[in-house]
């Protein structure tokens, strides 16, 4: 018997007697005999030490960003995570609990969600934030569905080509059965103005990203005005780290704001688990998907927290729910909460500043190299596009020999840019790393 099971042979005997079964196998008599008890062709069981060794072996076959300098971003970012974040995450009280259906036994989780909603709302300057989506891409797709459900007779979604290509792909996956048209990103070189011009009285929402996939920052205030004048909603995707320094969705007048929360205290982990941040205006709260915690009081008048406005959700409304989401990314929201609390008002700004200045330093140095050109699309945060003298894949292979994980190859998604690569610089890239990158590119 495995070491996770607490029933002895003697217990089992007594329990079977109580049940009136001769053997455990008898409990499965309802399963058709022809398919009952299949032989599973699985590898032999490992002891814990053997398993740990096997896992270490597999782990060692990957080039990690701790031992290599990483200049890759494009939707997932290598940031500093204070040790205290994981220390809180590893508390059993948080990670071995589930959705707080019984609030009296889950005040820890509920208060943490409430504080997540509060901190994130402060960071984004948005009225309401839910208790999380799977990632930035699914938050964006559900935001678009919310826009469709919050407007009348508007079945068109306009999306800029500078929105993360994976987000746009997920948007199309999510809406393929809903009879909507998605326009705006047919030409990868279309400008923001080109895209805004497509917003009309059939448009549910305009989806833009700032900083966008290329790292470029946009002034979205005039865009919000134009979108609202057409009776549509503005869905803004953003990067929470940039918000330490730059215009927030709330300040520009976005109706719905989404972001990938991974940069806030969550390790890269090969793409997940991450955190979908989802925020909206107060007007839209009752159309919002996902869970929400609210403050209330108990019988004795003590402050407490509960899940609230649950009539939006699938376990109550079934096919009339605002979304099918149930399990979310709760623990990742906790990571972001602890991370934001640790960095606080000053730290959030400071991280954004370090990213900005180091990225600009790196861009300026790379731009000096023969054959390399930083393409200018306007002000940028911590990512920038470099046109290279050779295909990005070749350059990245050369960087690999110098223990550098290079930038994102843009040639598949944006062929019009030529041999272009998207570099990302964060506070984890030391000035020495940046100089080494520049020297290696120089060759």
């Amino acid at each position: 018997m495995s070491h996770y099971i607490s029933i002895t042979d003697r217990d089992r005997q007594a329990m079977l007697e109580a049940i009136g079964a001769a053997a455990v196998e008898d409990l499965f008599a309802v399963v058709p005999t022809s398919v009952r008890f299949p032989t599973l062709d699985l590898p032999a069981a490992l002891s814990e030490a053997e398993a740990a060794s096997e896992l270490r072996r597999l782990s060692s076959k990957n080039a990690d960003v701790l031992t290599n300098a990483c200049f890759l971003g494009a939707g997932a970012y290598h940031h500093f995570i204070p040790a205290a974040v994981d220390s809180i995450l590893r508390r059993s009280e948080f990670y071995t609990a589930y959705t707080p259906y019984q609030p009296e036994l889950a005040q820890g989780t509920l208060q943490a969600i409430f504080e997540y909603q509060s901190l994130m709302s402060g960071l984004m300057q948005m009225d309401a934030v839910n208790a999380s989506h799977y990632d930035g891409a699914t938050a964006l797709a559900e935001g678009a569905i919310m826009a469709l459900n919050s407007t009348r007779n508007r079945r068109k979604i306009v999306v800029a080509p500078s929105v993360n290509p994976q987000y746009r792909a997920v948007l199309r996956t999510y809406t393929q059965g809903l009879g909507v048209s998605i326009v705006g990103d047919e030409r990868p070189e279309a400008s923001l103005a080109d895209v805004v011009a497509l917003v009309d009285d059939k448009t549910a929402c305009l989806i833009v990203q700032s900083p966008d996939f290329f790292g470029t920052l946009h002034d979205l205030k005039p865009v919000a005005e134009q979108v609202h004048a057409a009776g549509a909603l503005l869905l803004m995707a953003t990067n929470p780290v940039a918000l330490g320094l730059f215009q927030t969705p709330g300040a520009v007048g976005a109706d719905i704001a989404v972001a990938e929360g991974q940069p806030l205290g969550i390790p890269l982990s090969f793409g997940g688990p991450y955190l979908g941040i989802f925020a909206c205006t107060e007007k839209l709260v009752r159309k919002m998907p996902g869970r929400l915690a609210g403050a209330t009081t108990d019988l004795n008048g003590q402050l407490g927290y509960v899940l609230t406005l649950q009539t939006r959700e699938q376990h109550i409304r079934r096919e009339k729910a605002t979304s099918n989401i149930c399990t979310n990314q709760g623990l990742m929201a906790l990571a972001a909460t602890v991370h934001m609390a640790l960095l606080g008002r000053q730290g959030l700004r400071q991280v954004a500043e370090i990213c900005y200045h180091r990225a600009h330093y790196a861009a300026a140095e790379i731009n000096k190299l023969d054959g390399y050109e930083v393409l200018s699309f306007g002000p940028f945060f911590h990512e920038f596009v470099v046109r290279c003298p050779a295909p990005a894949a070749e350059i990245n292979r050369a960087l690999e020999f110098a223990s550098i994980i290079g930038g994102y190859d843009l040639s598949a998604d944006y062929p019009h840019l030529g041999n272009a690569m998207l570099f990302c610089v964060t506070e984890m890239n030391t000035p020495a790393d940046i100089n080494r990158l520049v020297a290696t590119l120089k060759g």
Partner: protein
Amino acid sequence: MNTYEPPIFELSGSGKVGASLPAVGVPTSELPSELLRTDDLQGLPELSETEVVRHFTRISQRNFCIDTGMYPLGSCTMKYNPKIHEEAARLPGFAHIHPLQDEASVQGALRLSYELQQLLAEIAGFDEVCLQPAAGAQGEFAGILVFRAYHLDRGDEQRDEVLCPNSAHGTNPATAAMVGFKVIEIATDARGNVDLADLRAKVGPRTAGLMLTNPNTLGLFDEHVQEVAQIVHDAGGLMYGDGANFNAILGIVRPGDVGFDFMHYNLHKTFTTPHGGGGPGCGAVGCKAFLAPYLPGPIIHHENGQYTRYVPEKSIGRVKSFMGNFGMFVRAYTYIRMLGAAGLREISENAVLNANYLRVKLQDVYPVAYDRPCMHEVVLQGKLKDAPDIHTLDIAKRLIDFGFHPPTVYFPISVAEAIMIEPTETESKQNLDAFIAAMRQIAHEAVETPEVLHAAPTTTPVRRLDEVGAARKPVLKYDRAAIAALRGQAASTDDQIVRPTY
């Protein structure tokens, strides 16, 4: 011990920082002034690391969790989460690799993912597995999109209905609606199975498929599952398996062998990746070969010792960024590798044994919804003799005072006053006996001292909470005035609120 902890904003003090950051270290560049944020981040607090750690540690102590006690939340499979999994997922070659790195630099991670695909396919009897969906509901969403794509690809365009038994999880009808299908509810028969007559009446040329949880949410293995599949297939529909209850049948029966075409696995249930207070999960999906071309991607492929990613030719597209919740893959992989085939079967045998033991020890007091042997969970009813004013909610709240997390209550909605108990295989007989004793004591109290049940719980950090008030006047973020009003105080205008003592 009083564990009350004020909202974190009330601990803030101007000038404190809780993280140690490097200097900029390079010449600074000009900032685009017109794009800057102008509020100086006034909505964010300032605390030291000490304060942040104490705050979250203190609030953590206001939680009940698997590591503190039995958590028999039906349909959620709250079993023990092995500690080795947490170590494995945090190895640097797993936790600190970028999802867009060159494939050659992440062969170990791709290999683990590939092997997990193979293991899951074998365990449930499918040909292909995609690990991308982040949760059960997203697995369902992927599956129903695949059904849609399959029918459309065959030019079968009139199939706009999805059938769901009335005992289904809410996510099933919500998923079908989200894809754009009409939801048709199927009745349950007197033995807790899909009602075959109702199914035959409702299935037809408009049926895209049936979503079935088996064992179902009544904790029962459908006695005609193969016949159900036959009826649906004969009408040209497909069989979706909701794997929420897969913990009952590991090594007992493979869903792929009884007629399911597609299924999602809940790695956070069956394969014990931690529930995290709500997530993350992983809703990997498996299917028969004829549906594999429509799966979301990427999927991992292995050839000549190299692991690569590919997207199936007629894929519905990606359902989330990157490959999915990889950290959960590592945990589930570790679990399966340590248990092997015999260990997996033991899981289900003990899970089913434990649930049936509770059933026979409680059914004389709490009516069972369906009187036949159950699988990994048993559904009772909170309808007690001579206690007309006592409801399932009171019983659940009183259980808390006995040190147990309540079972799932009022679900399935097809059973009045439902109490859905899933003990899982990791509970000891000693704990089960204590739970039985508590339930029987509560039944006794319900008649003798019902006020005790109405007042429960009394041993928790807070008493019953005003949920109606919370929904009527939602306070969804910290607002000093709103919080002060809840506390029955006047809103303080001071910058610093006096910290409560404990």
